[in-house]
Every structure is written in C-alpha cells, then in structure tokens.
C-alpha cells in the first residue's frame, strides 16, 4: 500500500469518526434534557399537580391545574384562529398563486417564521393588551401569529407534492378547479398537511416569550378568557426564577409534563406521515 493510499484511508477514517461523534452529541442532547427532567421532575408529577392550584411561597404542595387548563385554552384559541388561515393561505400559494403576489406572500411567511417570538409578544402587547387587558385571547392571538406561517408553508409544500397528473385527471372529468382541490388534491395530501399542523401546534405550545406579554400569569383560576391566564411555559419561567425550593420542584414537574405533551404530538405526527402521502410513487 502506498503512502498516499494510507493517508487517504486514515483521513477517511478520521472524518467518519468526527461526524459520528457529532451525530452522537446531537442525539444525546435530547436524552440528556429528557433524563434531567425525568430525574428532577417525576417525583413531583402526582395527582395534586394536575388538580390543585399553586400555593403561596413557603407552603409545600399544591399543583398547576390552572396552568394546564390555561395552556390548553390558549393553544386551542391559537389553533382555531391560526390553522384555518394558515391552511387556506397554503392552498392559495400552492394552487392559485400567480407570480408576484404569491412570491410576496411566501417571502413574508418565511420572514414571519423567522421573527423572534418575543417580538411577536411585544407586538400583540401594543396592539391588543394595551387597549384591553392581559388575557387568554391576547395569548391566543400571539401564538396564532406564529402558527399561521408555519401552517401555510407546510400545507403548500405537501400540496405541491401531489402530482399534476391527478389534478388534470379531475379537471378532464369536468371538475371545477375548486372541486379538484377539495376532492382530489387535499385528500391526497391530507396526511402531510395534518402532520404539519400537529408539529405547528406542538411548536407553539412550548412558546414562553409571547405569553409573558399577552396572557401573563395567574396564581388562581382566571375569570374567563378575558382575564390574565396561567400557562405551563410561563409558570415554569416564574417558578424557576423564584428562590423557593418547592416552586423549583413544581417547575421541573411542569417542564416534564410539557415536554411529554410535545413529544407525544411529535411522535403522533411522525406516525401519520410515515404512512406516506397517499399518492402512488
């Protein structure tokens, strides 16, 4: 074996090892976070955590029932507001978009995707909260603003993956464009679209910064959606920043519950997608 060959082989081995190590680091980070959360949080995830209100500092026990319900309320509001708009915008981009306007919408959606979520929080604070009040509605609006571009772009991409021949097949039978989209294109892409939606909702349910400015927090059950509302991410933030050991314990538990929820949604989304786009290859 020549020196040159030996050099090539050792370089190849070195690069393989290097990339392998980096891959392991990338994956193990998730497990480190998960493990840490489990280690610190699992003892505190009990019945009380899901059913009781937070207690004042100094007292031990209590739970985060209001934050769990609040999170669900806010995410649900965001979903109701954001998914239809994002979905329809995605349909427009994929099926109707001309050149200039569609390019503009697509570009804006990507920009909006990249806006730091705290900026969105401040924006909603200025537009909504300053006029009315901290509320679940304001939180929902902030999260919907994050959800819309995610949904629009993923819907567009999965609908673009539907072969043009299927559209032509429907059009050639005398279906209108709208009928073709509603009865052929969307059904062919629905798994991908649903996956994108679940991932989007999972993404917004972990957002903290936009909620700090909009739904704020609440140690008690709020007086409805117009009142400031507790949520798990904000609760984690406030409890973790506090000097009380028992609040730290609760924050770990909240983090664990939130992460399991998001993981569950992710796995569900992957399962739906792994069955493939319903189109023959």
């Amino acid at each position, binding site marked *: 074996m020549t020196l040159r060959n030996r050099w090539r082989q050792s370089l190849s081995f070195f690069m393989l090892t290097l990339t392998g190590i980096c891959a392991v680091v990338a994956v193990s980070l998730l497990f480190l976070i998960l493990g840490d959360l489990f280690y610190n949080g699992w003892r505190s995830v009990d019945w009380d955590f899901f059913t009781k209100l937070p207690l004042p500092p100094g007292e031990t026990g209590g739970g985060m029932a209001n934050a769990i319900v609040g999170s669900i309320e806010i995410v649900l509001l965001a979903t109701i507001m954001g998914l239809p708009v994002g979905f329809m915008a995605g349909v427009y981009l994929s099926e109707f978009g001309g050149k200039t306007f569609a390019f503009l919408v697509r570009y804006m959606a990507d920009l909006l995707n990249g806006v730091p979520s705290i900026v969105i929080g401040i924006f909603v604070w200025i537009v909504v909260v300053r006029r009315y009040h901290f509320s679940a509605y304001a939180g929902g609006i902030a999260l919907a603003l994050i959800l819309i571009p995610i949904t629009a772009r993923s819907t567009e991409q999965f609908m673009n993956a539907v*072969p*043009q*021949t*299927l*559209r*032509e*097949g*429907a*059009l*050639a*039978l*005398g*279906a*209108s464009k709208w*009928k073709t989209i509603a*009865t*052929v294109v969307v*059904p*062919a892409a629905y798994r991908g679209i649903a996956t994108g939606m679940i991932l989007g909702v999972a993404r917004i349910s972990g957002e903290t910064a936009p909620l700090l400015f909009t739904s704020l927090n609440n140690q008690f059950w709020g007086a409805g959606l117009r009142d400031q509302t507790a949520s798990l991410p904000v609760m984690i933030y406030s409890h973790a920043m506090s000097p009380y050991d028992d609040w730290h314990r609760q924050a770990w538990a909240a983090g664990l519950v939130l992460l399991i929820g998001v993981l569950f949604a992710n796995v569900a989304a992957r399962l739906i997608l792994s069955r493939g786009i*319903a*189109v*023959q290859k």
Partner: protein
Amino acid sequence: MSPKEHMIMSSANLPSASPAAGKPVEHQGKLKAVNLNFYYGAYKALHDISLEVQANKITALIGPSGCGKSTFLRTLNRICETIPKTRVEGQVLLDDEDVLRVDVTALRRRVGMVFQKSNPFPKSIFDNVAYGLKVNGFRGSLKDAVEHSLKRAALWEEVQDKLQKSAYALSGGQQQRLCIARALAVDPEVLLLDEPCSALDPIATAKIEDLLFTLKDQCTIVIVTHNMQQAARVADRTGFFLLGKLIEYNTTEIIFKNPTKQETEDYITGRFG
C-alpha cells in the same frame, strides 16, 4: 331505468350539454381545428393546424416525440390551459361551436381524456369511477352507473369483488382501463387518449385496443400514439405531425400504404423518428 338512460337524462339536465348529445350523426365532422396555433411562452409549438375529426371514427395522431401531437390533443378539451404562459390562436369547434365559448367544465364533460400515465385518484375503485358523476351532479344509482362504466371498459369481471379496494392495488393495465372507465362514466361524446398504452405490456395494450373498437359506436375517439403499428391497427384516419405541423391527414390506409408527402413516407418506413 338502465344506467345508460340515467346518464342520458342527466346530460339532458345539464344546461350546456349539446342537443345532439348521445346520438351523434354518423361520419360528420365532430371536432374541428381551424388554423390552430399554440405557444408555450414565446415558443410556437403548433403551426396552423387544420384537422377535422369524424364522428364515431378512431382518429390516430402519430409523429416523433416533441412533434406537437399531445399538445394538439390537449387543446381539444382545453386542458392545455392548466399550464401557465400558454396561448392558443385559431379555433377548435365541437359540433360547430367554438370550444372557447363553451363553459370549460361542460366541455370537458363532453370531451373526456385518458392520459399517458394512468392517474387514478387515491381513492377506492368505486369512487374513482363515480368521481366524474358526483362532480357533475349525477342523480340516480351510482352503483349501476359504476358497474355499467366498468363493463364498458372491460374491467368489471376483474374488479367486481374489490370495488372498495384502493385503485393503486390494480396492475398498470387495469389502472389504465380504470381511467378509461372513469372517463366513460360521464358518457363523453369524444374520448381523447394521450399515448394510453405507452407504459403497458402487449397483452394489456391489446385489451385496450379491443376496447377502442367496441367504444367507437358510442363515441368519437382521438388517440395519440408513437406506436405506428397501433395506429395502423386501430385507426380509421391518421394524421402525421412533424415539428409542430400537420404534414398529412388522410385515411389510415392511404397514410400507411400510399402517403403523398415524402416526410410521411420517411417516418412510416422508419428512416427517422
């Protein structure tokens, strides 16, 4: 009431269906192209095509790849409009009516199309055939109509036990016949076929060719093919396209045995293409 009667009734209910629907007059010009030009952007794909398709005949369009025969076919039911930046000049007449004046969905119901690559919808076999009926507001027994269409496409025997299975479970040849059944379900007056057998083996091809013979009593057929033997076997009339021009159009016998143009003869005898 038979499914066929159902369909005639349903087509009579549709406002834009022609009065002649269902009973075309023998051997008349059903579909006419008059000085047709077609552009993809700045590129001119069809040059001044004039051609008359006779009712209840099979018309084959042959020519080398890229000669414009598929493009021409796609102007006949205006499916070419789905491609952006294209432009048509000249006229296409269906029963002497300009197709641009006909509502496009009504036109496509009257002029059905089968594509080169079979394109069943990701739905059950039944729903595939029923699709055209449903979108056209068909009232009546879908079950009978689907059975009737599958029988017309000579597919019923093979699929009658698995109508609820996915269309993708079928073989390539069966899928193509399913697409023909789907097109026949709305009872079109004209059926356009764009190289329907190019992805099929000889047995499946023979089945589809047999099918075309049985269908021509009921509708007018235009088939694009790059297989000259196929044109010779099935067509009453044949048009030869080259570089976006219609070189020669005549009865199949004349085109294959005694063409008047040198280019046609060169192509038929295999000197190019």
